[in-house]
């Protein structure tokens, strides 16, 4: 069966050639050894434009194996165009099984969310990162931000949070909320909502981050301390909703507001579609 598939493939298993995968894996090993540190890598042309998750796709391609079960989400959903395309791509170039179930997946590629279903040991999450440098909006020079990391000079990050409070009365940063990984490297958790930040802390799963345009990857290995920056008198807090999910009744999940008719009626539902489904089935 595998043999037959092989002969039909136009590309090497998982699209990338073995040398490129090895190069990526070496970079990943370094990233795992230095949690939160951005490792440069030689990004390859992928059959998708930047902004479509080429960084994440390359990481997934470098680590995916025949026995993996792949889940791909965009926002929290498995059925958005971007998620569907990436999942189809890997199904075609690897032949591995795909799933929408968080529990059933061994490898999860995501852009905006960490699933509500707690991750477990042995699972790997790959994040598609548009901007790996948490300090970038404050310091345009890459040479300078590298120095700031090298010398652990992170006062600048608090400048941004200070400015948030001065302008809005609270820390208005609600996604891509900066974290300190392993008490050493300031990192951008990619555009996940800050709601998901606590899931980064001591996660039993391996978390990998890939930025294609910027050619950087970084990692949060299992059971690593991840602290969301804050002030003593403005502590870190996550989004909360008054209402429960209109579909499954969950009080604990991240909700999206959706407009349900032309008159502008709204309801709040789980952004994590798999989780919502599980909750609904669990009740039935």
């Amino acid at each position: 069966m595998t043999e037959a598939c092989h002969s039909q493939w136009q590309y090497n298993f998982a699209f990338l050639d073995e040398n490129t995968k090895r190069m990526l894996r070496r970079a990943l090993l370094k990233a795992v050894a230095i949690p939160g540190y951005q490792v440069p890598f030689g990004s390859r042309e992928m059959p998708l434009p930047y902004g479509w998750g080429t960084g994440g796709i390359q990481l997934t391609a470098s680590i995916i194996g025949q026995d993996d079960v792949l889940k791909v989400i965009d926002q929290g959903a498995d059925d958005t165009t971007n998620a569907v395309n990436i999942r189809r791509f890997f199904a075609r170039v690897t032949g591995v099984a795909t799933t929408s179930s968080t529990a059933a997946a061994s490898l999860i590629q995501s852009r905006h969310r960490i699933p509500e279903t707690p991750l477990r040991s042995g699972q790997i999450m790959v994040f598609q990162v548009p901007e790996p440098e948490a300090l970038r909006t404050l310091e345009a020079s890459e040479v300078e931000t590298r120095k700031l990391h090298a010398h652990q000079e992170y006062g600048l990050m608090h400048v941004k949070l200070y400015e948030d409070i001065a302008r809005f009365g609270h820390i208005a940063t609600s996604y891509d909320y900066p974290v300190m990984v392993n008490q050493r490297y300031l990192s951008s958790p990619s555009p996940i909502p800050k709601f998901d930040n606590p899931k980064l802390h001591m996660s039993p799963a391996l978390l990998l981050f890939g930025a294609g345009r910027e050619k950087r990857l970084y990692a949060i290995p299992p059971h690593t301390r991840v602290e969301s920056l804050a002030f003593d008198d403005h502590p870190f807090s996550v989004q909360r909703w008054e209402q429960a999910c209109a579909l499954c009744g969950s009080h604990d999940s991240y909700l999206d507001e959706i407009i349900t008719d032309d008159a502008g009626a709204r309801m709040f539902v789980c952004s994590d579609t798999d989780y919502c489904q599980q909750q609904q089935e669990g009740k039935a």
Partner: protein
Amino acid sequence: MSQPVLSVSGLAKDYGNGQGCFDIDFELYEGEVLCIVGESGSGKSTLLATLAGRLSADAGSVRFRDRAGSSHELTTLAEAERRRLARSEWGFVTQHARDGLRMNVSAGANVSERLMALGQRHYGQLRETAAQWLEKVEISRERLDDRPTAFSGGMQQRLQIARNLVTQPRLVFMDEPTGGLDVSVQARFLDLLRRLVHDTGIAVIMVTHDLGVARLLAQRTLVMQQGRVVEAGLTDQILDDPQHPYSQLLVSSILQA
């Protein structure tokens, strides 16, 4: 007798084209202002940057005594250690506010940055400290949330002073801080600076091409020409009785003004 904050001997920075600064010797004590004067291209900024470790020295020694009394040889200091000292023990005020301030964040954030870099994490306290420092440099605390782009040139320079002095550094380097200011604005700035130096006991090394600035501020002055110190001593003495022909020229030019 207290020990000098800075002891410089035989210091040289050679750009390799005969330019730079050479054979520099001086000592600087707590609460003292030293001015480096000289014409354009005489090596003033080069000397200042070499002292602050922003340029690497080619010869000589710069010894710095920190608050705790430990002595550091700056010419061979590791980058990490130099940056630590720069954060905690020094300030650097530049001629152009855009080089010394963050123009895209508020005055309050500008003043608070060094405190946050040193680990202060209480927003309310940071804000109150920043407001007090704005007042010390004669900017209304109402302006705390305004960006420096909304400030006049004189205010921007005073904001730079607040941003640097907020952590109570021992030594502040200034490169032509009044260079872009009108004469009346400059006088007010120098007056304020003199008061702050008096109140805080910091040591200041200020580069200026204007001996008039040195007269208002500095106990001692170095006169530079072509990368070398041609005259050094008490500012009053240089003004009263300049020895070197170049100093004589400088003195006569300010006396005429």
